């Protein structure tokens, strides 16, 4: 499933034109990005939590040049699904079978 399909489904369910839904979705995603950038955890009930992990700088060995390297720190955006979503995903599979 891609973004176009998501927008189409959203416009159907919200009874809104796709253009409007698309612009709104883009703005919401932008807001999500800002939340993740701020380092806060944003949770959506029955779905999951978006958060970001900070990784410190570390020493690593580069096998290509055979030298030790100091890698800079970085932030990784992450998502933790809720138990309900996990169950649904797995139960949905069982129902299909």
């Amino acid at each position, binding site marked *: *499933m891609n973004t176009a399909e998501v927008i189409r489904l*959203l416009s159907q369910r919200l009874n809104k034109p796709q253009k409007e839904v698309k612009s709104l979705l883009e703005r*919401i995603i932008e807001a999500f990005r800002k939340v993740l*950038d701020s380092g806060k*955890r944003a949770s959506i009930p029955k779905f999951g939590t978006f958060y970001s992990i900070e990784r410190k700088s570390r020493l690593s060995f580069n096998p290509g040049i055979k030298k030790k390297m*100091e890698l800079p720190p970085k932030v990784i955006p*992450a998502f933790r699904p809720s138990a309900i979503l996990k169950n649904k995903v797995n139960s949905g599979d069982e129902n299909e079978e």
Partner: protein
Amino acid sequence: MKSKLSFSDLINFITQETGASKKLVYDLIKELAAIIEEGLIRDGNVSIAGLGSFKLEFVGSNIRKLPQSENYREISEHKKVLFRPEKSLREFINRKYAALRPIIVDEPKKNVIVKDISQNKIEKTNDKVIEKKIKIAAESIPVINKEEQANKENRVPVIIPISNNVEKKTTDLKKFVDKKLGDQSNNTKVYYAVGVVILLLILSFFLFRNKPEIEYSQTPQLIEASTESGDNLTQKPENRDLNILPQTNNIASHKIERGDNLWALATKYYGNPYLWPNIYRANESIMKNPDVLIEGHELSIPSLEGDSKNLSENDNYNIALGYLKAYLKYKELGKTKASLYLWAAKKFDQSIVQKYRETLQKRDLKLWAHTEKEELRIN
């Protein structure tokens, strides 16, 4: 600081950012979550531009140990929801670290070299000479005074500082010795290479030495032809033709039995095993190899004019011819002992070798030349 945004806070934040109504934002997020869920169940993969992609991954059943207990728990196979953030999102969040790049960390090399020398080189080679060299070299370093050093600094830019302890000197010297060792190892390689070249030369020498056998293998044919024309014998050796064999009467014919050899037959019929080439000469057409007798074949044993102890000229000539034929055959077979038979032929009759000199291998003729000279000297 990290803090958790509740769903209501999130909606409030988004409404502030987007300017849309709370209800619309709420409905949209709820629907969005529902659609992602449906998409995951249906396709197993949902991608949203600007955010990332959600994916389902299959995890097989496995057994895990429960923490802080000795019990194990079997985890059944299930599907795991994975989220892979989009590159733009990762770059957006990491923009404060965008200028940073991985830095190569240089390690202190000196310590490594010292370790190599002290542990690996000396221990492995286990060479006391190296240690002695280090000690001698350390002692031989002149202790430079500060004034001398100041004078020398102008000439030589790099001088080992005196203030440093002896260890530093020894480490530098160890490096020097290590280099020397490296040179030695290179020298050994050169020696190995030279050794291989010499071996190749020796091999080629033997190969070329054996090559002319092909040329000389033709000569027995001449002699074979001569055996057929053995009737034209002249009694005087001076008048004998090269290709004509002296006629001899066969005293007996011998049927080859298992375990027979020419040496034994010569002792049996002549009483002297060294006369075996006489038998070979007479039966050359049957025999392909003087060393091999085929069971059941009949050999003709030629008679001797004289006694085994007092051989006549013809006997000597015949035996010499037999030795010569044996020499040629062994040459043809590529046996190194062939030249011995040429020497033996010379012993019995010098003239036969001189007559066949052109067809014989010069190398073999030269081989015994020095022994002849020595014999002459003795005589």
